[in-house]
């Protein structure tokens, strides 16, 4: 396997509870909770009193496999956009990443079952996430990248997201987004 598992340093497990909320665990400790609000948005509150607002409305409309994440200052109530995923694609520190992509060199056949991967792209089909259109979406299918994350598990039984250090700044909101986009039911 091409994935360097030792480089996946952060592991979150997200699990839906009987109240319909999701609990976030890291190293077997509960570190946050996600709940749905009205208007089809979600709120993530960590036990460090940090708050994020997550919405599938990206660049003006609700889109599949997309998430806008705002970090909210609990004191001033001001928000700051920390992550935008548009049709599986996101940008972080000038790198483009894609969720649910086949790692370079891995047979497509191996991705039909089991984990999904997050990969860093060598080249992006767009220079800005906002530019993604029907044409570029078709090209996303052919992309391959360097694996920096692995996602597996059903939401109610424990959705596991392992991420490499290069994503540590956005690890918690990214893991939450993956949980909401792929595994919750």
């Amino acid at each position, binding site marked *: 396997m091409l994935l360097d598992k030792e480089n996946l340093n952060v592991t979150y497990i997200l699990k839906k509870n009987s109240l319909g909320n999701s609990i976030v665990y890291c190293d077997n400790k509960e570190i946050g909770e996600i709940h749905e609000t009205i208007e*089809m948005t979600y709120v993530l509150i960590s036990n460090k009193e940090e708050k994020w607002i997550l919405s*599938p409305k990206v660049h003006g*409309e*609700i*889109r*599949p*496999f997309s998430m806008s994440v705002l970090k909210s200052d609990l004191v001033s109530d001001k928000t700051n956009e920390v992550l935008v995923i548009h049709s599986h694609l996101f940008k972080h520190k000038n790198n483009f990443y894609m969720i*649910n992509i086949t790692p*370079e*060199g*891995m*047979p*497509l*056949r191996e991705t*039909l*079952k*089991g984990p999904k991967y997050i*990969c860093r*792209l*060598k*080249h992006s089909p767009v220079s800005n996430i906002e530019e993604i*259109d*029907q*044409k570029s979406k*078709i*090209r996303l*299918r*052919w*992309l*391959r*990248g360097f694996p920096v994350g692995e996602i*597996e*598990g*059903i*939401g*109610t*039984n424990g*959705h596991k997201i392992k991420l490499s250090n290069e994503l540590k700044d956005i690890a918690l909101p990214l893991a939450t987004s993956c949980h*909401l*986009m*792929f*595994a*919750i*039911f």
Partner: protein
Amino acid sequence: MVKVEPNRIGPFPFPMLSPDIRVKDFSEVELPYTKEQVMLEAERCLLCGNPVCIDACPVQMDVRGMCEAVVRGDFKTAFYRIRKTNPLLGVTARCCPQLVELCEDACVMRWQGQPVSIGMIQRFVSDWEKNSLSLPLNEPVKNTEKKVSIIGSGPAGIAAADFLREHGHSVTIYEELLTPGGTIWYGIPDYHVPPDILHYEIESIKKKGVLIKTGVKVGRDIELSELISESNAVIIATGSKDVEKLDIPGVNLDGVFDGYKFLESVYVNGVNEYLKNPQYNLGNNIIVIGGGDSALDSARTSKRLTQGNVTIVYRRTENEMPANPLMVDEAKDEDIKFIFLTIPKSFIGLNDKLNGVKLSRMKLGEPDESGRKRPVPIPNEDFIIKCESAIISIGRGPNSFLQKKVGLKMGKKNAIAVDDHYLTSIPGVFATGDVTTGESLVVKAMGHGREAALRVHEFLMNKEKDHISLYEKYYTETTTSSYYQKMLAGKI
């Protein structure tokens, strides 16, 4: 822990006709589920509150609603739920690569086993409707008196027509060929989609009131300006048809064929007609060049026609092949051979007739723009393979005939340039599907066609300011708990 039945009913990915039988004719490879099997398989669906399978479907087909009804044996409800957004149910059930990038890839069941066999359930429901009832489709709510002309009856054109008719517009499709269906008709072999499936679904759309004029090529038999003057809007959906050329010595030899033209020739009038008067003398040793689905189909069609030795030559390794891996497995089972990391350097002939291909060995270098490792030639590693025919299937670009003829603004590879509203450079003329994006999947072209049709509807009804995408409409209406409860109660 949620109880999950990890494995789907029957073999994974689906039951198939054995290779030694199927290569002898053009029978469908995939075998259907029985009624009992389909109900058991549908029971594996977790009926998610946020169904990711629908997120992954370009036409937002109600997979969850289908499974909920099928478990109860209510195939009629299942049919109406999925037919609402998908006019080509039997076709897409058979030709969508569900496991690779669509509904089954997204299904949450894959996290603990095999995803629900959505394509097989959809196939059963559409076949059940076709074979038993032929259910009436919803009549348009009201007639708007607006006329829309659609150029091209492929997946994008058909999906757009269905949507616009549903919204009360008068729709006429102009199709160049004598049989509607576009690439589904002439580009997808019968062993994937038997022709009667497409015919039936086209007839259903015609019964809904869509007029299809076949054998009419816009730009040759009728001018675009005529359609503009007699319609309130025009949609161009002429697909991708311009084949990529392989510019190497010997490409014009007798025995070197274009894969897309080959497939069209075999399937355009039906295989039986082709067999009465075969136009290709393929011989017994056939080389197919390319790594996509069309290359596989050229190879598998050649095998069925000749029972000969068929070899696919691809410049990268199997890992980088763009073809659906399940189809690669099917081809291998049919004794199609593969030579990877190899490109053709020249075609060799004797008396203007092909008798071999000179090939060069490649190795993988640094990743290219797609992230896949680029093939790099290995010096002095050429070799020759004897063959009587070579079929080139290395890609298709947008069908550029009409845009060149009328001077529409074009983008890369002569694709028609459209804005966010799917409008071309001519007012009132919209374009959608592969002619704007390049070659894609049938269901993606359909999704594109529906979105363009929505824009046309908004344009005709002066509702452009109220635009809300079809996905957003689906999401806001059907992922609510009240909708979910109504669905479970059978009220939707």
